[in-house]
């Protein structure tokens, strides 16, 4: 049997022409595009649950066209919100040709009824527990409209994703997932709705096996750990990072600013090849942080941001700061305040996105009640386009303010400043060879 596993074409940039033009002409931030354009790990993972009698063709529409006349017994699509309009078009084309289509991923999990109108079956939640049941039903010709993963997946039982199926030429970076779940329930976050608050992780043995596999395929290799917050379980994190050291890789990981309190972990990260930490600062305004997370976890670190940043950078690790603009506490002065912070603190890069009322989030529920959601299609949910009416500015001002920040923080003067800053750090450090040569 032959299955197509499809990642629909997505917009990893804004749909705004001026914004797109700036991004495409700036080599330093063009890297954002390939940073976020990895193939769906969900599809690669369920592919690993199939025996050899199933032939799988992976199609990443960002790199190759779909031949709708190719014969497939089944089409499986994974989609995020901004890819969803295209995902439904793809499903329609195949269903016209009498091919069964199943869909999963964050968007269908959050809006299963909408998804069902466009496909034969919808996967709700994590795929590992429901895929075997679906395959059994599919082979007996009795598939159900919905497959709901009611129990959390035991990650130590999750198979190694089929990285070998990917065309390595398409991807400069490879995503590996070691953990799922985040106890911090931010108002805007949809990932926590699929993975839940309970922090789970794979075994160190599993992660090392995955790294060894991708290392045998990609050259050069840069790994992005896909976990929303990789180092929540400090003991596990330290053991994992220690185990990575001998593998001689480079990687980026996502975490929170509290890692600055752990010198031991930072020193291990340096040795293990952590080039950058992607840290969610979200906002520089106390009121915004309080609204995001009522327990005040993020808020309590706000005053210490500069010192914490310096500590991390002193280990030769660059910080990619993740910020969101457009919160109710943001006004026209927020753009300059944010640019100044990024420049003054020598953040190596920054990803500033526009607050996005993604389906299934508390943010969307609130904005719906307040009548502030703009009637845009899902393909406008890029994170770089405005889909709601901001409190203290117009949607147009928010859109142009975002571009203003990017133009400022990625100017040649700022680039030179960053290079000098990091060069001085490296000049004071021993060359990173000694622990493994």
């Amino acid at each position, binding site marked *: 049997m032959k299955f197509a596993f499809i990642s629909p074409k997505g917009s990893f940039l804004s749909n705004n022409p001026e914004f797109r033009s700036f991004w495409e002409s700036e080599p330093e931030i063009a890297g954002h595009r390939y940073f976020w354009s990895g193939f769906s790990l969900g599809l690669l993972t369920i592919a690993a649950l199939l025996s050899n009698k199933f032939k799988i063709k992976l199609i990443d529409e960002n790199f190759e066209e779909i031949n709708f006349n190719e014969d497939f017994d089944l089409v499986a699509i994974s989609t995020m919100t901004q890819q969803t309009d295209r995902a439904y078009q793809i499903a329609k084309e195949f269903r016209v040709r009498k091919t069964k289509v199943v869909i999963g991923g964050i968007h269908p999990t959050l809006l299963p009824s909408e998804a069902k109108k466009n496909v034969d079956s919808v996967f709700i939640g994590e795929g590992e527990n429901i895929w075997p049941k679906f395959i059994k039903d599919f082979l007996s010709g009795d598939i159900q409209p919905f497959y709901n993963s009611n129990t959390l997946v035991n990650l130590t039982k999750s198979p190694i994703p089929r990285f070998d199926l990917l065309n390595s030429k398409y991807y400069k970076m490879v995503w590996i997932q070691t953990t799922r779940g985040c106890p911090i329930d931010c108002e805007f976050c949809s990932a926590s709705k699929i993975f839940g608050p309970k922090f789970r992780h794979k075994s160190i043995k599993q992660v090392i096996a995955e790294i060894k596999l991708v290392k045998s395929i990609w050259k050069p290799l840069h790994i992005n750990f896909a976990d929303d917050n990789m180092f929540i379980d400090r003991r596990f994190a330290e053991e994992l990072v220690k185990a990575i050291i001998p593998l001689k890789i480079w990687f980026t990981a996502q975490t929170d600013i509290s890692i600055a309190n752990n010198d031991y972990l930072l020193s291990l990260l340096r040795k293990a090849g952590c080039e950058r930490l992607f840290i969610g600062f979200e906002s520089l305004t106390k009121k915004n942080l309080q609204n995001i997370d009522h327990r005040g976890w993020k808020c309590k670190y706000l005053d210490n941001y500069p010192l914490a940043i310096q500590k991390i950078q002193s280990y030769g690790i660059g910080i990619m700061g993740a910020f969101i603009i457009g919160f109710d506490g943001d006004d026209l002065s927020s753009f300059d305040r944010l640019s100044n912070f990024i420049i003054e603190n020598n953040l190596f890069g920054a990803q500033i996105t526009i607050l996005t009322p993604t389906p299934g989030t508390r943010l969307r529920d609130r904005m719906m009640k307040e009548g502030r959601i703009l009637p845009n299609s899902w393909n406008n949910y890029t994170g770089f386009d405005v889909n709601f009416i901001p409190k203290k500015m117009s949607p147009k001002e928010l859109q142009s303010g975002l571009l203003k920040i990017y133009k400022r923080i990625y100017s040649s003067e700022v680039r*030179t400043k960053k*290079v000098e800053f990091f060069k001085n750090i*490296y000049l004071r450090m021993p060359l990173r060879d000694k622990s493994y040569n």
Partner: protein
Amino acid sequence: MKKSKKNLRTRNFKKRDFDKIKEEINSIIAKVAKVDRSEIKEDINIRDRLGIESLHAIEILAAIETKFGITIDPAKAFEAVTIKDLYELVKSYI
């Protein structure tokens, strides 16, 4: 171009041949980029073949400056596409 005239290591390298300089640069690249020295060839693209980007490049730059006692204009360093370009750049400062 700035040259650190006081640095003894620079003067030592002036007496050595270009091959020695290349060897030192290769050694630095291998250590920072975590690649085998045999993979470092003159004509290869630094970014595409060795994956050296952004922070790696700055670290290599810092190590080269320390090794040879020179200060390289970062803008010129980032113009280097191949390993050979980097050799020539360093040579021009020594």
